[in-house]
């Protein structure tokens, strides 16, 4: 597997190079949730900004934009030993092609099919060197039909996966749901994904500033939205997607952490949809940010700890069949000895 980072090899990211990277927004959501309506809304509101839009041929509605790329979603398995490591081959090709056009795009927006699992898109940004250097995954935006979400969660894996991977969730068609239904839907969404920012909407009326330029995959912002600590054990050991977070007070030994997380992702990577952590290493004034999509992991030092604030390390898992005691013991054992 590529990528469980080693603390000794990391360096501060090259900020100059980063600003040249074109932000990519992934727009996902179940059939009929209102993805294309939202997409057209983004495009009409963005006067003077240039976007390349990648759609698939099964799109229900037309997309009004100068540059629309029609692509077949091609999910390719990688020969790198991880069974769950897949990439979107079409995106690698399309990004390579778009980079040849002169003049900068302000961004690329990728609309996935309703049944798409967002993991291959996200993993493409970890795996492919060209995609990694030329673009950055800005955010995964998931559009959810507020009225029909409970039914979708009951009858498909994909609906939960799309919420689990989201950085921003647009709870759409809220005019069709009652206040109680909305509260319940938000609770279900939070249970699956405590990080995502939720926006309520009708016909996709969310300000564009809440969707684009989120920097949600920046390590700096990995835990910007501090999730509530839920001590709700109701969803352990079952097929539902759930999230769990853990916090420890003593510094983390980088070698132990690398060994533990490497083995954990190798063994449980298929069940672990997303993992995010902020770690305090001994004698290090900067925070170490860690994130993973299934088995693909990435990490780097980000800004310093706040002066005077406690340097507590935390990690959050979103996935299926999470074993709370085992995860807690594992994370706790990564601390330096007392």
């Amino acid at each position, binding site marked *: 597997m590529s990528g469980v980072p080693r603390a000794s090899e990391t360096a501060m990211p090259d900020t100059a190079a980063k600003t040249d990277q074109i932000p990519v927004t992934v727009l996902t959501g179940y059939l009929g949730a209102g993805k294309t309506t939202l997409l057209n809304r983004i495009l009409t509101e963005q006067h003077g900004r240039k976007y390349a839009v990648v759609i698939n041929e099964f799109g229900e509605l037309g997309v009004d934009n100068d*540059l*629309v*790329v*029609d692509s*077949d979603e*091609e999910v*390719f*398995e*990688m*020969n*790198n030993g991880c069974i769950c490591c897949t*990439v979107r*081959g*079409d995106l*690698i*090709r399309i990004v390579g*092609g*778009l*980079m*040849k*056009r*002169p003049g900068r795009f302000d961004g690329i927006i990728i609309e996935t099919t309703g049944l798409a699992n967002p993991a291959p898109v996200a993993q493409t940004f970890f*795996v*492919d*060197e*060209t995609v990694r250097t030329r673009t950055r995954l800005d955010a995964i935006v998931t559009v959810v039909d507020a009225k029909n979400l409970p039914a979708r969660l009951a009858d498909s894996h994909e609906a939960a996966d799309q919420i689990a991977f989201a950085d921003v969730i647009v709870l759409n068609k809220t005019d069709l749901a009652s206040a109680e239904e909305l509260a319940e839907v938000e609770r279900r969404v939070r249970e699956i994904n405590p990080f995502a920012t939720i926006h309520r909407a009708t016909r996709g009326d969310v300000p564009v500033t809440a969707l684009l330029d989120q920097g949600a995959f920046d390590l700096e912002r990995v835990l910007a939205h501090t999730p509530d600590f839920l001590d709700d054990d109701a969803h352990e050991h079952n097929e539902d997607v759930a999230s769990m977070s853990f916090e420890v007070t003593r510094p983390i030994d980088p070698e132990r952490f690398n060994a533990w997380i490497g083995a954990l992702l190798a063994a449980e990577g298929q069940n672990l949809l997303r993992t995010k952590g902020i770690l305090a290493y001994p004698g290090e004034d900067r925070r170490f940010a860690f994130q993973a999509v299934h088995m693909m992991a990435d990490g780097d030092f980000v800004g310093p700890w706040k002066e005077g604030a406690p340097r507590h390390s935390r990690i959050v898992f979103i996935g299926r069949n999470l074993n709370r005691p085992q995860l807690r013991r594992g994370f706790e054992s990564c601390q330096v000895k007392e």
Partner: protein
Amino acid sequence: MSQAASADHLLETRGVQRTLGAFVVAAAFDRTGTAAFALGDGSLQLLHGSEWRSVAAHDGAVLALTADPAGPGFVSGGDDGRLMRTARDGTVAEIARFGMKWVEHVAGFADGKSAVLACAVGKQVHLFDGAGVALKTLAHPSTVSGLAFDARGKRIAASHYNGASLWFVASKSDNPRLLEWKGSHTAIAISPDGDSVVTAMQENALHGWRLSDGQHMRMSGYPGKTRSLSFTRSGKWLATSGAESIVLWPFTGGGPMGKAPTELAGAAEVICTAVACHPQMEAVAAGFADGVVLVADIASGRLLPVAGPGRGPVSALGWSADGARLAFGTETGFAAVVDFSRT
């Protein structure tokens, strides 16, 4: 003389150069010796002698370029979904259009008698005769990522997910020989003797098939992806990009299996981004991420510097048919033709 000056000596004394301002996607010579550079802004820049001509060929980026197999001029594919023919005088004519799908690869073959033209659009390869009349369409299981005719123009190979397909151009039946290997294959080459097909893979490795006995060949160890691969004229060597040197795999005496490749022109931290084997001699032109262009003589390992660093990562290389001139271009829009012939 400073080092930079000596590295640019050939470019300055024997070159015609220009800053074109857009990504140079490909460079090629037609049969009369006119050079063309295909650009990301949709234009072809033709160079005849020292005279430049800009031709608006595509509405979008040009993605692929080849010499017109039917006569003087060029054929190009673009992200506007069109396959275009450009004459030396700059006249442009559409051969075919494919809607929203990109025309990502083109290839041509000509011998004295006939000409065949191929382009890849999504999962399909379309074949045309020299006049641009559609001959047939070859369907693949996934998007075609590379195209190559064999040296006699009898067969065409297309790389795609999980392997490659090898078709007889003139065959009435539409069944390819499937060359299978799991994974994403991203470029393809056929050896001059027609017995080896090699693809570049997503995992920074090459895969090859020896057609006569079905032997698989694995060539790995690249720090980056191989985008460019080219057999020498004799077929003894396969030159490849993707490492901090020109990596040459030996295809003699049983093939590259179990052998170490020859590495030429190694430079720490600078990836070789393009290679093009000389059409007559056992030599290879190579371009690097720092803009360096050189020609390496394989037997002696001698290096001939063509251009020094600083003009952008080399993205296109092409030899004239007689091997006297080399065209190269960079991602940042620098283009040049250098003449090696004795004067």
